[in-house]
């Protein structure tokens, strides 16, 4: 479960690791979330947020993999069609 959605960190503030808070932009809607659990995240990163906490940094390279897989399927399909 757990409804968690991706948002972009616009700004980070907070005076200690546990207080580290981000201003997160979710498609035009802004809400603050704790960044205590993603110490490596910086402004500009996307994070997955649940119940006011960022739980994970979105790995942008990995995010594209399903589309690359589908593109390869397409190309494979074309090859098969073009075959003898």
């Amino acid at each position, binding site marked *: 479960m757990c*409804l968690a959605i991706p948002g972009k960190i616009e700004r980070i503030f907070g005076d200690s690791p546990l207080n580290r808070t981000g201003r997160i932009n979710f*498609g*035009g*809607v802004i809400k603050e979330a704790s960044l205590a659990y993603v110490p490596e995240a910086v402004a500009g990163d996307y994070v997955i947020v649940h119940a006011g906490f960022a739980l994970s940094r979105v790995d942008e390279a990995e995010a594209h993999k399903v589309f690359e897989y589908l593109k390869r399927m397409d190309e494979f399909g074309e090859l098969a069609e073009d075959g003898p």
Partner: protein
Amino acid sequence: MKILELNGACPVPLAQYPQVLMAHGGGGTLMHQLVENIFGKEFSNPLLDARHDSAQFFVPPGRLAMTTDSYVVRPIFFPGGDIGSMSVHGTVNDLAMSGARPLYLSCAFIIEEGLPMETLWRVVCSMRDAAKKCGVQIVTGDTKVVDKGKGDGLFINTTGIGVMEHDLEISPKSVLPGDTVLVSGDLGRHGMAIMAVREGLQFESTIESDSAPVHKMVLALIKAGVEIRCLRDLTRGGLASALNEIAEVAGVKIAIDEKLIPVREDVHAACEMLGLDPLQVANEGRLVAFVAAKDAVRALAIMRRHTGGERSASIGRVMEYSLPLVTVRSAIGASRILDMPSGEQLPRIC
């Protein structure tokens, strides 16, 4: 949150009466002062100025339409509107759903003792401006004040009378298989604008309520001879509620396509964040129209020409007579039922 820009100062001497008192509803001097200086002054028109117990007027020939609604929205002021403008638009829109030209409104205020006078005045000014924009007059009213703790600030009831200058039977019973379903704009703004300022869930956004009158759009459709079968303004319960109610009365299956339903990105994002379905979220200035398929393109063009209707869209059609059912084709092409929302929309954690 935007508070209204007001012309001039509040006419009730605020230094003396910064808050509404029980006596302001008591029928005596204070009430007279309130009525004269706020309601009477801001809503002024010949019918109201006569100060009769009832307004007296002739009506143009044709069937009359009458509607009433009470407004209890919290907070009183929200992004894009307030309880006052909502109470005018909402009742004007209900009249418009019969294809009626709105003429006169009554308004009754139930005020909680202690409400800041300034708040009341801002709401009244907002109603004045909304009424003017809609071309309606507020011709009679009532004021009551209840004990502190018994009223949640301010409740407003408006009742409206309009005239139907057409012969159409605009009602769910007129809906036929093959009819096209149109919406007059993007969905979910009002409900999410309120959520954004609701305690416990606040978020920052530029979402504003879509509270607005739609009667001019409706009258234009009628004037153009569009065969309108049914109209419904989308309020609490959103599109889901309206379509289910209509399907129930008409005894039909309605099929809509999610990809065709306009939803703004920020409304979509807010819904995703709270786990809500935009099709079940409240609107205030949107209507769904069932029209004969042959008139759909023409109707859409007319709707898009009106302010607020720019994102009107054709979203589906009436299928066949059946057990009442509303289905939605999802983004990936499969169907599901669009159910009547049950009770208050609750944000999800899962």
